[in-house]
């Protein structure tokens, strides 16, 4: 029972990270109708920027987290402006290629600046405590609480502010939004800022627990895509639930069978769910 609870706890922690990263990805996909393949790399860069503020400049954890959020938010706006916006009226394949270009650029940038070896951020909350027979690291608990706070905050923003509602409006009907006087370019920029800033926050929370490496963005980006498909394309609740499902499946599979196969469980779950429900958990029929 302890092993089970311990794995579930770990699964929820990973799931929190997945949920946030997938949430950002699905927001941008809804707005631009193109997959931002570089999304996981923004997460990776968030981890390194946090490292820069904590490790290099010696700032505290919380100020570093806020600064990382701002830096990545601005980077998101920049990316929308110079990588994607010029391609708005071009064939989709161009944006695909641009996304891959952005991904390679970001990974190489991290490689040049910080090197290929893994880096570690000192854990600001190394304390553990016992609950129901399982060991809970304080930083791990913080990952979960941080994620829930962020998800709740985003929900309030999307449902109860006019700016948040315009994101949904543009995703549902781009031309309809324009004809209502909404500046769709600005909405795209705001969406990109939110998407990269939230990925960065997820990275800030998780990086004191795990090593940073330039390649970690690619793996997480891939998983975020699995989650988005799993949860149903463009569905925000789907991305959140999908994130937690994937985290728990991975942790249970890893704990009971073999940690070496944890990615196999993730992709296996994707195949099974898509066989049963091809549009994903919250997916709608194609319009």
């Amino acid at each position, binding site marked *: 029972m302890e092993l089970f609870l311990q794995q579930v706890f770990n699964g929820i922690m990973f799931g929190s990270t997945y949920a946030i990263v997938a949430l950002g990805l699905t927001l941008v996909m809804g707005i631009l109708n193109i997959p931002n393949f570089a999304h996981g790399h923004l997460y990776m860069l968030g981890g390194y920027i946090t490292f820069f503020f904590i490790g290099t400049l010696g700032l505290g954890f919380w100020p570093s987290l806020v600064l990382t959020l701002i830096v990545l938010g601005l980077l998101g706006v920049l990316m929308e402006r110079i990588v994607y916006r010029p391609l708005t009226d071009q064939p989709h394949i161009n944006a695909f290629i641009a996304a891959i270009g952005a991904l390679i650029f970001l990974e190489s940038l991290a490689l040049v600046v910080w090197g290929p070896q893994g880096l570690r951020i000192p854990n600001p909350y190394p304390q553990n405590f016992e609950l129901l027979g399982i060991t809970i690291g304080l930083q791990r608990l913080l990952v979960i609480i941080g994620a829930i706070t962020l998800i709740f905050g985003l929900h309030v923003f999307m449902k109860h502010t006019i700016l948040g509602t315009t994101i949904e409006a543009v995703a*549902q009907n781009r031309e*309809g939004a324009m004809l209502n006087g909404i500046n769709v370019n600005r909405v795209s920029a705001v969406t990109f800022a939110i998407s990269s800033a939230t990925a960065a926050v997820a990275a800030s929370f998780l990086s004191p627990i795990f090593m940073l490496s330039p390649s970690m963005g690619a793996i997480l980006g891939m998983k975020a895509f699995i989650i988005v498909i799993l949860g149903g394309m463009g569905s925000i609740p789907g991305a959140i639930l999908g994130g937690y499902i994937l985290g728990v499946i991975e942790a249970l599979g890893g704990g009971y069978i073999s940690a070496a196969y944890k990615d196999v469980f993730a992709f296996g779950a994707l195949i099974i769910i898509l066989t049963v429900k091809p549009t994903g958990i919250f997916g709608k029929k194609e319009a």
Partner: protein
Amino acid sequence: MLKLNQVHTAIGGLQIIQNVSLEIGKGEFVALLGSNGAGKTTLFRTIAGVLKPHAGSVTFEGVPIDRLPVHKIVERGLVLCPQGRQLFPELSVQKNLLLGAYPIRGEKKRIQKNLDRVYALFPILRERINQKAGTFSGGEQQMLAIGRALMSEPKMLLLDEPSVGLAPLIVKLIADVISNINQEMDTTVFLSEQNANMALNITQRGYVLESGRCVLDGDCQHLKTDEKVRKAYIGA
């Protein structure tokens, strides 16, 4: 108020609108008639800024608007209620309407006043405040689209084929509302219709579009008796 001077618009290299010039004064109620494929929608999309003309000019209240982004044109008070309605299907009636008030966001009192006005025009919308727009029937969607277009208090409203696909009773209701918008609310209205009968009964004058060219214009009495119009659009 609105002036088009020798406007040409092409879509994907295909010339759709050719040399269209027209002028609409403040407070007027004007029809744009034409059969399917005549270019009515393309002309409206050009005026609203969704499409850019490759020759000619569009001016609104003396200001050239043909190079402005769509949202800037909306902010100036020229609003298109598009064909196919272009609603936000997953959002509630209330949210669709509030998004229509985006150009005047922040002005709570004005928005509430406009919301009440739209609900007075279409009481059915008030009953379905929280229902998703995508679940509506065609007629209800059209009402919502017109309501949404009114939320920012446009000076001029372009209505692209509001009657298409609707039952005669609903067409009658919508025609009454549009007349009301023009007369009571002092909004200039440019109405595109295949249903020439309905359009000529409520408007003051009209333009007839054929294969992207403006082939005829005049007041409604004149157009109604015109042999070509009768044959082509009224069927009598």
